[in-house]
Every structure is written in structure tokens, then in C-alpha cells.
């Protein structure tokens, strides 16, 4: 078979260069993913050194249909979609606004770019701990500010909805920098000549944005939306760090962790590990992310083709 890269060694070298990365992907990403599907058909707890006991689709049946726990799983699924919607739309909007602002030739823009990007380089644990301090309800910074307006709130420790919304805020804060940087990169690829031509033709700033900037930002829009949708559907670590196990707050990713690693009762001592069941929950999450991700990709590609040809 003829290599598209040429004959002999020259044709083989590109494949050789790809091979290490491909092997790493197969071993550390695709392999565990396929194993997860296998585990989801068993009752493994991750400990017992015995052959896998296959129980068919019982884990899926339990996860989706058995008792009140199944209803809570469905609620967690809906909460995950709500989280995805809130994070994607707000992060996208704020990231675009920040990029537009920091793409101006103004004093201090580099400093602000660094400031907005700073949370991205912090780990989830650090992000969570910082916000725990911010949201400390006994005269913490946010509590003090709210107190000035006569508002008393338990913040993260309050109602499930309140805690959920605060985690949403932190998720947006922690990833806003990436969205902003991608938009900045997109903005800086737009030639100044196009803006200049639009101005000469009498376009206002608003018209310039909608008819020049926005269409040419399409690749950045696609990238940002896909990353944000998939990232927020999979997110769960901040829920763990910020609010731990609380009724009415879990997203699907957290359910996977809680079931697989014995964090379901809220108790520190009476835990059970259900890694087969957790794997089934993980596969359900995979299917959700896959459907939403592929649909979004399809729609965004069509949009790209329509706008850019």
C-alpha cells in the first residue's frame, strides 16, 4: 500500500511518530473506557480478586428504574444538563465579552488577561478551597458584602439550589480564562483590513461586530462551545470539593464517583464500593455526553459551512 507521505522510510516515519501517542491513547483512554463497559455488566467492587461475575444489564436496570434511587439518578441527569446549559451560555458570553474588551489597545490589558487566565492554572482543589474561604458564612468576604445589603445567606451550605448555583459560579470562574484566550486568538486572526473596509463602507461598530467579527470568530465559537459542553457535562470535582454529598446537588459525574467509591450515605464509616454499578452510571454519562457532543458538533459544523463556506 502506498503511503500518502512517500515511499520507503520517509513514508513510514510519520506513522512511527504517531505511534507512541496512539499507544498511550489506546492504553490509558480507550482501553479503560472499554473496560468500563465490561465492568458495567458485572457486580465488581474493585476489590475482590475473583473472576468477574456478569449480571447482564442489572446495573442499568437498577440505575434507571429501581426505587427512589433511580428517580434521584434521573434528577441528577437533568441537573447535569441544567449545569451544562448554565455554564456553557454564561461562560461563553462572559468569555467573549472579556476577549473583546481585552483585545483593545488599552493600558493594563495584558495584566487583566493574566488575571482572567490565572484560575485555569490552579487545580480544582485549590479553586474549591479558595471559594470555600470566599463563601465562608461567618463573616467571610462574600457574607460581609451581602451583609451590607442586609442579605443573610448560608451560601454553599444553604439550600441545594443555592449550593448548586454557587458551584456553577465557581465552574465558570475557573474556566473563563480558557474561553477568553480562545476568543482572543480568534480575534487576533481577523485582519485589521476587514474592519477598516467595513468602516470605510459606513458600518457602525455594532454592524462591524455582527457582519465581520462574529462570522470570522466561527471556528473559535465552535471550539469554545464544544469544550464547554463536554467539560461541564463531565464536571463533578468541584461538587466534591465545595459541597460534598448533599441531597439535591449531585450531577451525574458525582453519582459515578459516589457509587464507585462508597460516598453515598454521607457517613464516613459505613461505605460500600459498587464499581460495577458506578461503571454503568459512567456509561450512561458517556451516552449523554456523546449524544449532546455529537449533536452540537453537527450543528456547529453546519453553521461553519453556512457562514464560511
Amino acid at each position: 500500500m502506498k503511503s500518502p507521505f512517500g515511499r520507503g522510510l520517509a513514508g513510514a516515519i510519520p506513522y512511527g511518530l504517531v505511534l507512541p501517542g496512539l499507544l498511550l491513547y489506546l492504553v490509558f483512554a480507550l482501553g479503560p473506557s472499554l473496560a468500563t463497559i465490561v465492568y458495567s455488566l458485572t457486580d465488581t467492587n474493585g476489590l475482590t480478586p475473583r473472576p468477574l461475575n456478569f449480571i447482564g444489564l442489572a446495573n442499568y436496570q437498577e440505575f434507571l428504574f429501581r426505587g427512589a434511587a433511580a428517580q434521584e439518578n434521573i434528577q441528577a441527569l437533568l441537573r447535569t444538563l441544567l449545569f451544562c446549559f448554565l455554564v456553557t451560555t454564561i461562560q461563553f458570553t462572559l468569555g467573549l465579552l472579556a476577549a473583546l474588551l481585552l483585545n483593545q489597545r488599552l493600558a493594563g490589558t495584558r495584566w487583566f488577561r493574566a488575571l482572567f487566565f490565572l484560575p485555569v492554572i490552579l487545580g480544582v482543589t485549590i479553586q474549591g478551597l479558595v471559594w470555600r474561604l470566599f463563601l465562608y458564612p461567618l463573616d467571610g468576604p462574600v457574607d460581609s458584602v451581602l451583609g451590607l445589603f442586609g442579605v443573610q445567606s448560608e451560601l454553599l451550605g444553604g439550600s441545594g439550589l443555592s449550593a448548586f448555583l454557587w458551584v456553577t459560579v465557581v465552574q465558570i470562574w475557573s474556566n473563563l480564562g480558557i474561553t477568553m484566550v480562545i476568543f482572543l486568538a480568534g480575534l487576533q486572526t481577523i485582519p485589521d483590513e476587514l474592519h477598516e473596509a467595513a468602516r470605510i463602507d459606513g458600518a457602525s461598530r455594532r454592524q462591524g461586530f455582527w457582519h465581520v467579527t462574529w462570522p470570522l470568530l466561527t471556528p473559535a465559537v465552535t471550539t469554545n462551545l464544544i469544550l464547554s459542553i463536554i467539560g461541564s457535562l463531565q464536571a463533578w470535582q468541584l461538587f466534591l470539593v465545595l459541597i460534598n454529598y448533599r441531597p439535591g446537588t449531585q450531577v451525574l459525574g458525582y453519582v459515578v464517583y459516589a457509587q464507585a467509591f462508597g460516598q453515598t450515605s454521607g457517613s464516613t464509616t459505613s461505605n460500600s464500593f459498587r464499581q460495577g454499578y458506578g461503571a454503568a452510571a459512567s456509561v450512561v454519562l458517556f451516552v449523554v455526553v456523546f449524544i449532546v457532543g455529537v449533536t452540537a458538533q453537527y450543528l456547529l459544523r453546519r453553521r461553519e459551512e453556512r457562514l464560511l463556506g
Partner: protein
Amino acid sequence: MRNRIIATLSVAALVAAACGGSTQSPAASVVAPSQPAASSEATAATASLAPTTLRVLIHQNPPFTTFMESFNKKFEVAHPGVTVDMAVVAPNDLATTTQTRLAAKDVDVVDMFAFDTGVQSYMKEVTPPIWQTLADAGSLLDLTDQPFVQNYDPAATKDAGTYNGKVYEINLARVGFSGLYINEDLFAANNVKVPTTWAELVAACQAFKTASVPCMTAGGQDVWPIFVTGYGILGSAYPDQAALVEGLWTGSIKWNDPTSLAMWDKLRILATDMIESGATGIPADGAPGRFASGEVATLSGFTWLAPAIEAAQPSFKWTFIAFPGSDTAADNKYVFGKYDQGWTVAADTPNKDAALAYLSEFSEPTTYQKFVTAVGAIPTQPGATLDTALGRAIAPSLGDFRIGWERYWIPPTGAGQFAFPYASFFKPFGEFVTAQQAADAAQKDLQAGLDAIK
């Protein structure tokens, strides 16, 4: 078209990461039952150990951590060439870390919560607790014939460390979790009597509220201190907690029957009215410091908090009482608690000699006594005494020490997340406002699990 396929596969690759991801307590006393302590022969026999790194895993409890750091140094001095690599994890993470490190053969000695009641005959289709799973999996070393096991109260070893006739854990302590720490200065300054009944506690909190003094604090950020706090109320409603669990499973007791409803109302008052505003932000290990600041009248909590209170403010005057959850003073004599932590050894440890020497030396009566004093534990070793302020305060209650509900309870598979008697379900920690809401939700979620296994 090819681009679309590649793009679709790229999305698939990105999302692929989505996958991957007989136990009744004996009546305790401050001095454990008399039993001859084993000699230190075992220690002598293992005095010369091969150089190695002993990997130890413990849960976070500041006084315990401090004690263990000191013990480790002495152990290393006694055994040149042996290094103790001790990891400390939050209590919530202990089970997960234990599981992963045992599976990775990355740990030798593990601090594990007690072997409490496992699956009972009336329970169907439940997942056994982790200790049972680990023992069944052969992940824990059989300690039955180790001499240092004899240093401990046989009843404690039987109830909290034995499974299928083999000893897998030496249990180090009993702890009470249905207690109330009293700020003696604030009670005196406000002329409030230390409560012996629920009505008196309610009246006391009202008096403090009138004086603008927070009545009670607790580590609400971690949630579990709130619901464990309510176990005193649960205990006053159902003194026989093993019977309660069986009754819930068999249907003779319901979470929304009159007795339970009264219990839920007290839990509501506890969470909503008694615990101070802002407690949702106080971590479990921050609550003793908050109490020791002297600004709060009571701390609802557990016996293991006492050393942290003393460390935070040595001159602070406090005492400890069994939680007055009942309107009858005589019913409030019980301290509900559990066997707490213990030592286990990984079955396939390459450092078996060092691990056993570690446990042996820890179990020496003099060392164990220092542990008891440092941690404020109710001892499980004969002759050890809890000669601290807590020990003196709790002594009258220890004859009525009982194992608490959470050590018996395993929920039916399919039960919802409200199938528990948790004060944390009420505002501000949760959503419920009335006792009836919580009672009905708890019974509904429990019944859903029971119905699913019919």
C-alpha cells in the same frame, strides 16, 4: 464527509473520558475491664527489623495525627533503617484511599473504622460494608495469633475486629457521639441550668437567644456532624437501636409514625433553631475551636472533640453531658456511640514484620495509655484510663454506653437519599421546613427500597 467523520470521532474521543472514569457493645467504663496485659516479648522479638519504609494510612484527627507523628519518631529510633511514611486523609476519604491503596499494594498498615454490624439475616440484596468486603477479598492480614491482640478487651476485639472467627483489626477506642459540650462560664453568666431534658434544652437555648448568645455550634460544612448530632434525639426515641433497624426493615417501625414524627420535630428544632447561623461554613475540625472561643453556649458533638477543645483554649471551662433528647431525664442517661478506629494490616504487605512490630509497640500499655490521653478515646485496653476532663465528665454515663444506629443500618438497594434520620435535611442545611415533610420523605424513600426487593 471525511472531515465530518474525523470531527465526530474527535468528539467521541473527547467524551470517551467520561467512562473511566453480634455486635452489642458491652457496657463501657473509663477503665476498661481488667485483663492481664501481654508482655513485651513480641516487641523484643521484632526489635531488629530489616531496613524498609513502612507505609501507614490514617484519618485526619489533629490530636491523633500529632500523637502518631511522635510515635513514629520513636518507632524509627527504635528500629534504625525503618522509615515510617504516614499519609493522613480526611475521614470522608479514608475508605476510598484505603481501597485504592490496598488494590495498588501501596500500603502496609491502615487505620480503619470499626468492624461493626454487617449484613443481618433480615436484610436482602444489600451491599456489605467495606470492612466486610475487604475481609472477604482477603485484603486484610489475619491477626488472630498475634500476641498484642491479647492486650485488648476481648469483647471489643470480638465486636469490632473479628469476622468469621478471625481477628482482622485491633480496635483502639470507643467513642460517644450523642453528647453536648457545655460552656460553663456562659451558662453561669446567663444563669442557665445545665439541661437534663429536651424541654430544659429548648428553654436554655431560648434564654441564650434572648441574651444574643448563639446556643449551639457544630461543623456544618461537612454535613455529617449535623446528622450525627441528631443521633442523641434518635436514641431517646428508640433506645434499642438494633431493634429500630430491624423494625424499619420489617415494617414494624416507620419513619412517619407518631414516635418518629416527634423525633423529626426535635431534629427540626435542633437544625433550624438551636445550631447557630453560619454553622454551614464551619468544618468538622473547626467546631472545637469555635466552641473554645467561648462565644457559643454549647457544642453538639462527639467525645473525640475534647482534646481539640482543650488544645484550642486550655483555660476554657467546659463539661460534657449525654444529649438530653428526651423529656424524661432518666431516658437521657444513654451515650450512643460506636467502636471507632483500629489498626489493620494489608494481607500482602512486603513489610509484614515491621507492620506487626508497629502494632505491637503501639499496643504496649504505656504507649496505648498515651494514645488514650492524647485522643480522648474511651479505652479498649484493660487498665487504660481516660483521666481527662472528658473522662471525668462522661464517667457516669459510660455504664449506659450503647452502639448507635449508624453502626447497624444498611439501607435497602433502591432506597432514596432521604431514608435516613438526619437533622441535616432541615433548613438551613437542607430543604425541609416541617417535621411532616421530612418524615414522609424519609418513609417514602425507605419504602421505595423495600418495595424494590419484594
